[in-house]
């Protein structure tokens, strides 16, 4: 079982919490964004306590995503990158090879909804390009999309085509106006609101406008149908504690003083 944790650190020195999370959740692949912690600092923190040493897996062109792994970075080589996108081929010995695509989209403070949707189209293209390069579509997309699962770029066929139902995603593709578009399964839909354990979202924002969702799920994991047999859906979690300290304040909102304005997302793949 290979474990993954994604977290937007909001440019804060959260190495102690990251280390606690890595140990508590037995994380194999740590994916961080808005990470201003120097790699050597985080490695010292991680490897001081960890039974298995972590490695820094540097990118070449994408400095907005930082990845640390409990195996050599030679098993996770970057395939295609842009300044906000990093696609890596994860091939552990005697394990299923996958494409791990990590992204950090611009926030709604800086980009309009239209620009964000537009970016999803390009992201979808880059994912398909990556899949052509590696020769398979066992792809997991993880990151801070700064969009909710229901927004145009995430749901549209021309965008990420993320659907809420596994059985729909297992149909693999859908034809729209004569063109075939592959699905992603977006399990994050199932984590909204109060019906499941844990926080109602990953990011809290309230506005004075008529429409305000309050809780958003900007930090998402999407799985290609070919990778679904390996995805442990029960393990998917929006994390609210590192074992020692809570990442949410007493009112249940992300504790932006002690931690980040985003909550981490944890998931597992049986590779």
């Amino acid at each position: 079982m290979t474990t993954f944790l994604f977290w937007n650190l909001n440019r804060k020195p959260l190495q102690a919490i990251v280390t606690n999370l890595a140990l508590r959740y037995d994380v194999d692949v740590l994916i961080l964004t808005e990470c201003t912690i120097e790699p050597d600092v985080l490695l010292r923190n991680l490897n001081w306590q960890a039974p298995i040493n972590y490695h820094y897996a540097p990118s070449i062109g994408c400095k907005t995503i930082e990845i640390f792994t409990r195996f050599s970075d030679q098993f996770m080589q970057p395939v295609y990158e842009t300044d906000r996108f990093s696609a890596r081929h994860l091939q552990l010995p005697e394990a299923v090879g996958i494409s791990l695509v990590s992204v950090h989209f611009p926030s709604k403070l800086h980009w309009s909804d239209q620009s964000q949707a537009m970016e999803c189209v390009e992201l979808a293209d880059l994912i398909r390009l990556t899949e052509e390069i590696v020769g398979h579509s066992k792809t997991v997309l993880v990151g801070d999309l700064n969009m909710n699962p229901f927004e145009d770029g995430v749901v549209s066929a021309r965008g990420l085509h993320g659907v809420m139902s596994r059985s729909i995603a297992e149909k693999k593709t859908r034809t729209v106006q004569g063109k075939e578009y592959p699905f992603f399964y977006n399990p994050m839909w199932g984590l909204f609101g109060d019906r499941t354990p844990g926080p109602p979202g990953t990011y809290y924002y309230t506005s004075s406008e008529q429409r305000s969702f309050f809780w958003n799920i900007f930090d998402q994991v999407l799985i290609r149908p070919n990778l679904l047999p390996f995805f442990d859906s029960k393990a998917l979690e929006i994390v609210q504690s590192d074992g020692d300290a809570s990442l949410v304040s007493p009112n249940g909102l992300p504790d932006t003083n002690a931690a980040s304005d985003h909550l981490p997302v944890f998931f597992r793949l049986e590779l």
Partner: protein
Amino acid sequence: MIDLWPEDIEQVEGKAPVTILREQASLLGKKTMNIVEAKVRRISNTGGPSDYIGTFPALTPWIHANDFAYAFDIVAPALGDYRYGLFTMAHGVEMYPLKIKIGTEIADEVRPKIATKINDLAFVGDANVLTVQSQDEFLEALKAILNSAKAQRVIKAILAQSTE
């Protein structure tokens, strides 16, 4: 039969933007002994699932349905053919105006450098899409992008890792 076409119909002014891109791509290989290369790939408007499906007007307003669109990638053959997407470009049948989409880091660096050299410099909305009106402006913008600190860092990083 009467020939109603103009005499100089075969004369073409200027180079096609994709030709300019391919020339620059080949020069990078020469400068780095092909340790680092650049490749220009067409973003197809009509491809099936196995193509680089490019445009859909409702969701990509900066590329229109009949545009010619290309991506310019930095490639590292010795690193498993690693690719870094430096920018994408699109134009209509008349070549200009032409749009170039770049990452935020390059956009922030390039914007002040070329603002005085390119008339009607326009970044479409907030998505780092630059519009140029002529071949001269295109060359100015392209030079700024290829000389950007980000592009240099990526190339140097590839060189360093390829020769380890």
